[in-house]
């Protein structure tokens, strides 16, 4: 005879996916994400945004680059539904969506599209950043979900 175990209260799952190595050039991006801010780098000399964020501007080589809080809004530029692999933490969650998002600021960034059935994702879909906190690390991982559209 088997006995039904009483349900345990749900504990927050430990974060099992790969984490960024926090370096002086990259740490602010991940720490800002914990504050629900999607940060971009913009050059004070040539005034252009770039991605990924660098301390030296890839357009004009100026070191006068500054972190700017981005809108977190964009559109899906391309995507794939991963059915196999993806590494630790991800391989267990297939299918999931890896996507390239074109932000309203004009740069294309890598992330995931979440909060939607993977088969419903479309190129051109309007999305907004969401942030998955990594417990105990003071950082979050930005991902993108469909952005609710206001009715005309």
């Amino acid at each position, binding site marked *: 005879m088997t006995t039904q175990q009483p349900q345990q209260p749900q504990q927050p799952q430990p974060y099992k*996916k*790969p*984490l*960024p*190595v926090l*370096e002086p*050039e*990259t740490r602010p*991006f991940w720490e800002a994400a914990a504050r629900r801010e999607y940060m971009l780098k913009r050059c004070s000399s040539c005034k*252009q*945004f*770039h*991605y*990924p*964020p660098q301390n030296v501007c*890839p*357009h004009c080589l100026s070191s006068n680059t500054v972190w700017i809080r981005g809108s977190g809004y964009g559109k899906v*530029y*391309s*995507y*794939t*539904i*991963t*059915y*196999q*692999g*993806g*590494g*630790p*933490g*991800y*391989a267990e*969650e297939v*299918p*999931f969506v*890896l*996507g*390239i998002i074109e932000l309203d600021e*004009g*740069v*294309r*960034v*890598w*992330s*995931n599209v979440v909060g939607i059935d*993977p088969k419903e994702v479309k*190129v*051109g879909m309007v999305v907004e950043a969401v942030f998955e906190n990594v417990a105990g690390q003071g950082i979050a*991982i930005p*991902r993108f979900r469909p952005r609710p559209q206001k009715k005309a």
Partner: protein
Amino acid sequence: MSLRGKTAIVGIHEYESRFAPNVSINQIKAECFREALEDAGLTKDDVDGICTAGEGFGAVDLCEYLNVHPHYVDSTQTGGSSFVVHAAHAATAIDAGRCNVVAIMYGSTAKSRGVAIGTGGAGLQAEAPEQYEGGVHGTTTVGVYAQTARRHMEEYGTTSEQLAAIAVSTRKWAATNPFAVMRDPIAIEDVVNSRMVSDPLHLLDCCLQTDGGGCVIVTSAARAKDLKKKPVYILGMGEAVGHWDAGRRDVTTVAAQWSGQDAFKMAGVERKDIKLAMLYDSFTITVLVTLEDLGFCKKGEGGPFVSDGKLEPGGKLPLNTDGGGLSSNHPGMRGIFTMLEATRQVRGERGEAQIPNCDLAVAHGTGGTISHRHGTGTLVLSSHT
């Protein structure tokens, strides 16, 4: 002074086994080196340049294993295109008088060591710049190529059936290669009905994972004349890098547009005169965008271009006649095999798979990931200068 026709491929060898659990990487390289020397009619002492890429300390490690002290070494790492780039560098160095005979070697035991080349994801610690687009987001190699396929479909209406045509024609060629891993015929339906690995790329859109390796020996055109085999002259060469373009990347284009332009310009030949295209086929989409960007068709027209049978045996532009990475072998960095098969075809050594009058071929390597950081190398090879 142009490098056109100044150097030639004079010795080749391809490691026959696709599964080699009991050998080291350096053993594969050394055995291929020995056989390529035999093929060329050269000895170890004739070689004064060593090139390799892949792991560890590159050419330095290999020089120890071979017990040689070359005047020229090259461990340039541009991923799977490295060996094609090495050949271009070797031609430049030979013409400049730095060295006389250069051996380019590759070896890999990726299959027997169980390396998940395409789907493995990254480790738990992601460094910059990979940390923004790599393992943190569950990125796989096939997934990055799939981004190009999806966008190409969106912009140009390319279909899974069109991509499948590349896998089908490559399999037909593989049937002519006794060493190819996959030799049974497949149809378009088999490809599009195979398991989805990373949408829109199916299992049969993906290359194999094997062990293997090879060696290519390059020397001056003058020296080549006295050697055992018919020289395969290097008429044109180019190398290029594609990357994220500071956030403006168009993922439907690859660096082949630049390396190909340089190679064709130096060679002074037209695309329509090419008898064989040996193009790195990590995935079907890799071939499609490479054909476009090398100028065989216009951007966006790759789908219809590959769908009329021209890539198959008897077609107008035979592609990957050894069975490619899709059906013959893919130990991780396949560029060297594009030169090996091009050399066999230009020499006229391919038996039932021989392309008639194959006097002009393109060998093109693509390394890294096409929708993101990648390096390409393009050679135009010919039976005459």
